């Protein structure tokens, strides 16, 4: 399972970077969305995948029986998803507003502040 996920994560990173290298700001933001999801999946995969065993302690016992899934990466990903969602909401509004002001979708025409 991990190896399949590894290919998926790699593919997502590649797609994200490809999109971000395009000149359109809409594709740039889509690239950012995919990049953030790719990072979340990487976090999920790298910390090990255990199938179907919830980390619950049965009543009257001090520790769970056998090997259970690690709840920490899931908590981390949940946090990362929430943060990513907020940031991307901002990014979408930003490009909308930028398009409104600059009237241009092409990053090559947005270099007034560079030189």
């Amino acid at each position: 399972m991990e190896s399949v996920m590894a290919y998926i994560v790699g593919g997502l990173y590649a797609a994200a970077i490809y999109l971000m290298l395009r000149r359109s700001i809409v594709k740039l933001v889509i690239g950012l969305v995919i990049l953030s999801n790719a990072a979340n999946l990487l976090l999920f995969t790298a910390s090990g995948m255990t199938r179907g065993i919830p980390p619950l302690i049965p009543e009257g016992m001090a520790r769970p029986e056998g090997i259970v899934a690690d709840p920490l990466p899931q908590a981390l990903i949940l946090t990362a998803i929430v943060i990513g969602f907020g940031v991307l909401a901002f990014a979408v509004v930003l490009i909308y507003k930028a398009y409104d002001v600059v009237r241009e979708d092409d990053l090559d025409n947005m270099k007034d502040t560079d030189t």
Partner: protein
Amino acid sequence: MTDLVVLPILIPLIAGAVSLVAWRSMVAQRWISIIGTGALLLVSIRLLFAVWDHGILAVTLGDWPAPFGIPLVADLLGAIMVLLAGIMGFAVALYSLATVSRGHERFGYYPLMHILLSGVCGAFLTGDIFNLYVWFEVMLVASFALLTLGGERAQMEGAIKYVTLNLVSSMIFLSAVGIVYGAVGTLNMADLAYKLDQIEDTGVVTVLAMLFMISFGIKAAAFPLFFWLPASYHTPQVAVSALFAGLLTKVGVYALFRFFTLIFDQDVGYTHNILLVAAGLTMITGVLGAAAQFEFRRILSFHIVSQIGYMIMGLALYTPLAIVGGVFYIVHHIIVKTNLFLVSGVAYQLTGSYELKHLGGLYRQAPGLSVLFLIPALSLAGLPPLSGFFGKFMLVRAGLEVESYLIVATALVVGLLTLFSMVKIWGEAFWKAEPEGAYQPNVNAVASGTRWRLPLLYVPIIGLALLTVSIGIGVQPVYELSLDAAEQLLDSSHYIEAVLGEVP
């Protein structure tokens, strides 16, 4: 005692929340901003003294024991950084009262400023790398909103680059956190410092070190990852520029210092060599970029990049004296750079422009301001007896001790070129006669009725200039503080012991 570690995060957070409640009342928000940043300053002073007296302070949140819960740790470097954040927050809050326009105030300038400060202090105090990511994001989101407040064309163009590159950096950071957790199963910095040493496959560790280096390098604006900074820092309100210039890139530098002394000290010959090369190139590109600019704030922005090189040089040389110099340089740089931005804002209020060719005659118009510009400018260039001289002196001496003559030569030449840039601003903006053909000042900037605010602008500038001079003249206490901070950084057992209770 332990409350002191939590308060620098809580105070700005609460101040931000309260100013959100007082959304409609600008008067209330202004008062809250002064009281909130003032309280932050007081608490950060007390925190620094507490850490200096009692050693590293650590708190585990929610009372979960150390490697499982999230610790907040204040060592000397962290406490110094929090103090600097407090000083800058207070100075910029005072300055904002006079410069920030009503339109910006109405769209939440003050709450955002508080949340930014909260994120910055959180990043300086946390002892958990995922928590560090969260504080980075808190800080970033607030800075995105502050950067785009106003919605002018230049701001939008700058913001797209700023947002994109900083998000890419965050994603690299998050990926690295994931791989670290997969490799050693812990995210606590003190625990990591110990466990990464136990890994036999040093290749993995070095790969992780590189991922963190790139991520923090983007945030610190090191070569070749700095392009977002000069593209965006000159676009927002000057108070925002000053706050960003003082604090944001330094969070990246702080993270580099923390990670590459505490956690990644396994393969110093490899990782710190890369840092050294990056430091030299950062200095050169920054200063040459500044030489080509003719806009007040853009010159200063490029100089941020070049000065970052000096701090990283201190880290990269990795001798005790070099780390002392690096810490000292951070202290000096934050104060001086914020002050220069504040001065540029006053020049703008007086003339209505940041372009050097439209500026002129400021020496005649405001002789006091000229002196206040010269103090931080010469300090930045490293002239004795101002603070910058001692920072450069320590770094150069540390470089000579380990016989890295190339980086020493670079540092000295870049110092000279910095002086060139500062003299250029001096000659163009202050010394030359007011340009003919009467450039029409921006009506908003010098609207009638804002003249009474000018004295308020000078208060933080004079305060920061005095600080620069007094660090230069009374260098000994600051040197000793940096020395102790460097000792704690180089001997990670103090940090591990404070967090985990014992060295495993």
